[in-house]
């Protein structure tokens, strides 16, 4: 009940803070979606994190973690964002695939895939969407057929984040002839496997973070299927709940951005527009509210609870608060808001513009906010489909 940290939690925070202070890259790394160099610099950072035991603090020790609980994970995230540490290039693996693998994977699969994920040796892309199946994943067409000990993958995936430079991807495939939610499997494949073609897609910011993938008779061992044949939809939905609900967007991310926003506002002194002051206060409150909701959720999970459809409320809330926060920063910057980071007069405290553009994708990815509202209405409120 009391909202205070235990001594051991405080000690853990101190340890994280000290390690980060000692190991932070001296200068910001180049963007991991912009160039191979940026990507590899982030992989190196993952390796550094792993060497210190910080890459996956909540995982079991045998896979490279510390076996810590969700509250300690939140504390680590707070220190991580406080330090301004680099973005996590292996987030698709660590936050999306790993929780699912922990639950549905065999011991052999975990032993094979989790340690190199933790160390950054293998970096993961996701491959959910297809050109005709964005929000509507039940319409995916990419196929998997079993031939002996091998799975043969065919199809066309798109909006595959990190796939331009990553090593592995995981995606949904269906048995030929199966329909809707049936006959799907979640399968991993190396992005350099014969038959995989990776075409970069430029995002509106000019970076190449997405790719479309063409798979032509890509052969992987049956070992690369998570769960049983046909269990893919079920497993995928479990992942989606974690993605939306908790792991994808740590509250500390927004608290740190809100703190920078407050500083930007205060730096304007008496000249600051009180109308924008209201928005600054709002952005800070939003970040705090999200933090409190996540602490409450983690407390429930620690006590044996499950993530339900309320995960969809999280997704809506963080995606909207992120846009609002960055819009407020741009409003404070006035005519400098539109300048790219390399422009001589661009704001140098933070790349607010890039953050804004990124935030605009929030209501789209991880299940569009329209879909999330449907889920809330139907599964939380019980309205008819």
């Amino acid at each position, binding site marked *: 009940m009391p909202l205070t940290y235990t001594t051991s939690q405080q000690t853990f925070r101190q340890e994280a803070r000290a390690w980060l202070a000692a190991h932070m890259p001296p200068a910001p790394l180049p963007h991991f979606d912009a160039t191979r160099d940026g990507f590899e610099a982030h992989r190196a950072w993952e390796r550094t994190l792993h060497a210190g035991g910080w890459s996956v603090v909540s995982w079991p020790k045998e896979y490279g973690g510390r076996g810590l609980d969700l509250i300690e994970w939140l504390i680590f995230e*707070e220190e991580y964002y406080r330090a301004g540490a680099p973005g996590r290039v292996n987030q698709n693996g660590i936050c999306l695939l790993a929780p699912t693998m922990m639950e549905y994977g065999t011991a052999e699969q975990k032993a094979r895939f989790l340690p190199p994920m933790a160390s950054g040796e293998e970096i993961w892309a996701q491959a959910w969407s297809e050109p005709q199946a964005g929000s509507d994943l039940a319409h995916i067409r990419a196929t998997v057929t079993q031939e002996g000990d091998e799975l043969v993958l065919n199809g066309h995936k798109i909006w595959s984040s990190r796939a331009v430079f990553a090593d592995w991807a995981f995606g949904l495939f269906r048995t030929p002839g199966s329909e809707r939610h049936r006959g799907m499997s979640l399968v991993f494949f190396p992005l350099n496997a014969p038959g995989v073609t990776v075409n970069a897609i430029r995002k509106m910011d000019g970076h190449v973070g997405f790719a479309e993938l063409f798979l032509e008779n890509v052969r992987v061992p049956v070992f690369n299927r998570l769960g049983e044949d046909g269990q893919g939809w079920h497993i995928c939905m479990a992942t989606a709940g974690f993605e939306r609900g908790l792991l994808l967007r740590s*509250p500390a991310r927004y608290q740190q951005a809100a*703190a920078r926003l407050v500083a930007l506002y205060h730096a304007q002194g008496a000249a600051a527009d009180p109308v924008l002051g209201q928005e600054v206060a709002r952005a800070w409150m939003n970040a705090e*509210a999200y933090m409190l909701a996540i602490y409450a959720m*983690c407390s429930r999970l620690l006590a044996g609870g499950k993530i339900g459809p309320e995960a969809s409320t999280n997704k*809506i*809330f963080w995606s909207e608060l992120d846009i609002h926060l960055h819009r407020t920063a741009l409003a404070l910057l006035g005519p400098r808001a539109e300048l790219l980071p390399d422009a001589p007069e661009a704001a140098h405290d933070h790349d607010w513009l890039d953050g804004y553009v990124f935030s605009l994708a929030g209501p789209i990815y991880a299940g569009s906010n329209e879909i999330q509202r*449907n889920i*809330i209405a139907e599964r939380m409120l019980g309205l008819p489909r």
Partner: protein
Amino acid sequence: MDFRFTEDQLMMAETARKLLADTATSAQLRTMLANGMARDDARWTKIVETGLTLTMLPEDAGGLGLTEADFVLIAEAAGYAALPEPLVESAGIAAPLLAAIAPAHEVLGDPAATIAIGHAINPYVADADTAAALLLHHDGATYLRRPDEVRLIREESLDPFRRLFKVEWEPSGEPLSAAPDLWSDALDRGALFMAAQCAGLAQRAIDIAVDYAKTREQFGKPIGAYQAVKHLLATAQVQVEFAKPVVHAAAIGLAQRDVFSRARISHAKIVAAEAADLATRTALQVHGAMGYSWEVDVHFLLKRALALNTAWGGPGFHRERVLARLRAAPAGPEYGFAHAGMEA
């Protein structure tokens, strides 16, 4: 760090919810209005018997000695029920003020008696006429008056269950206490429990609207099957989901009495009032003309939400407290819980 309510707290809240669901039905509220009743004695007796008025009184005043974190869910339940009687103002806000000054005061001896409170932030005093005593503020000091010792001028609220009065009185004689901090504490409790009521009534508005949307048909299907209606209600529910944890954390942290805890209370007041506003207006829209009629309960909630928005500080006042916290101390992930950041 475990941000959950205890089993005891949840059980007491559930008791309060059930009691109010059974005794503050739509028909009972309408009977009160039709008969011009200020209080439903049967309901109030049950509330008193259940001990709800004793929650926050110290044990040496005959109370249960519990805290704001214990009462906050009761306040939510009162909001959910659109409770007419001043359980929250009296037991949650006023009685602890009197108990902090004079735990043995005779007014505290009767658990059925209510106490009204005249804080400077509220120009009107709620339920002053039915109170056993009024706690009045003057220049930081606390005075106690019986209703018959002051002049009460009724200021009728849109909310038919809210009995507001302008109080005319003279601050003569010895005050009960000269300590202004007591009033600052009362403001914190006041804002917090208004927020809790708002959170409760917001959820009630959504629940009513959801029930209606499941059965009302237009164009051949229930209106709740339309995406426009779904999204209106989902949006309101999202606001409630991110108001409640703030209200709860504010209740748990109130005792800190610092710039951090005050900002959280103000945050709670702002967003819970907004959630109540949005949810009640959404319920009205979902009900259509039906919601605009007197016969459906939506308007009770909508009016209560409007009134509570300014009670114990409006949005501008509380925004200023949030901004004061941002000026006073750094923000950032390590300051999520006050003093959680290390001084390292």
